[in-house]
């Protein structure tokens, strides 16, 4: 029993640097494995749509006809399942989070299909 058991701790923290950092003036250090956001290596993508089918939150839309890969940043929960199952390994997890904003953000990425066209021409 006793009073003021915490006073030692409080006195010490009074003369210490703050435990928090001065974000955003001091930039955040991202961890080596931090799951921030999904990035795509567009030329590698074959528009198979596996990522869109397996996404638990339906954040991805892949259109074969329009050759686009679309991600709803606000729906994506960064589980990294698409990165794991992508047959061409063209998706990757970037460390930085999507910047905060006032509105929802959807990124539309056009997939170059030049490679495929040449093979069609060949036939």
């Amino acid at each position, binding site marked *: 029993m006793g009073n003021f*058991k915490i006073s030692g701790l409080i006195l010490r923290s009074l003369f210490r640097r703050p*435990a928090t950092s001065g974000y955003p003036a001091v930039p955040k250090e991202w961890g080596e*494995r931090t*799951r921030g956001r999904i990035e795509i290596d567009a030329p590698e993508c074959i528009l198979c749509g596996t990522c869109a089918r397996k996404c*638990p939150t339906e954040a991805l839309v892949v259109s074969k006809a329009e050759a686009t890969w679309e991600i709803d940043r606000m729906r994506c929960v960064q589980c990294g399942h698409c990165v794991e199952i992508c047959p061409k390994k063209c998706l990757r997890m970037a460390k930085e989070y999507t910047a905060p904003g006032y509105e929802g953000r959807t990124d539309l990425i056009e997939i170059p299909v030049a490679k495929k066209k040449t093979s069609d021409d060949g036939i």
Partner: protein
Amino acid sequence: MRGVNDLGKRTVIPFGPQHPILPEPVHLDLVIEDEKVIEAIPSIGFIHRGLEKLAEVREYPEMVYVIERICGICSFGHGLGYVTAVEGLMGVEVPERADYLRTMWHEMSRIHSHMLWLGLTADSFGFESLFMHTWKVRERIMNMFDLTTGGRVIHSVCKVGGVRKDVGGEMLERIASEVRDIRKETKELTKVFLNDTSVKNRLCGVGILSEDDARDLCAVGPVARASGINQDLRLNGMCKYGELGFEPVTGKSGDCYARCKVRILELGQSLDMVEKITSVLPDGPVEVPVKGPLPTGEFMMRLEQPRGEAFYYVKGNGTKHLERMRVRTPTNMNLPSMVRMLQGCDLADVPVIILTIDPCISCTER
């Protein structure tokens, strides 16, 4: 029997779902007589999400990411419970190293959950500096999660057949050294929780749940253990608790102080277990490919989460989707005990008592 004239003294005070001390949407109708609570009727159901139903449209390997998001605090436990249930259904044996890593993460999540609880309890009886200091220490374990799994809160490391990420030697050393620091810092904090007069005044003898009541009301987890029931699901053969020589902690008095003490002792135990795992982790693969027929049959599985016993029931029908998936969370089972504890307490102690069962209504309503 009470006469008609006595009725005037009774007041019904609505408590929650929005309350400064309680970040959880639970509503209580408190029947008050002269500052004493006579009866409490809980009502939940403000945020029922029906995640169990989602198992019928998501394939079983992806469902784990949904299950993990039932709750932010016991996220790892939910993921672990679900994958173990599906592994039981399909007869998958996970490699030794994966099992040890799961045990380590599960214990780390217990540390962070108990620290969160200690902080919130300090906050509930108005000890703000203790709250801040507890959460400062908790931040260290969150950083360890970020380092090893890539997520501070939602870890997404469990998968059917093992774990998704391996933890190398350098990381293990960092965890071990961090655990030693945390132990030093928590020692100082627990001294305040267990010995300070102002804290004891708010916790000792408040919200008593006797052993018989705890049995009758089917209490689980630290609430049951604080009332003297030796019941810990970590002894049911899952993960590596047997190899780590784990024995449950129990209290005696069943009041808020006993619940606080049980959690503090468990915290130390978990720190010891994490440190031990960093030195005994065997080499080998961390996952096995899941082959064979799609899940059929049914499997009932439970595990000890930081808040108590959690249930996972899975029923397969030979497709990639589960036919029924059921999660029963510890708070579900502790709500009746909370109602009993509230009977006869002072109105001012209501927030403290509610917090000592460590309620998670978001878990409860899945």
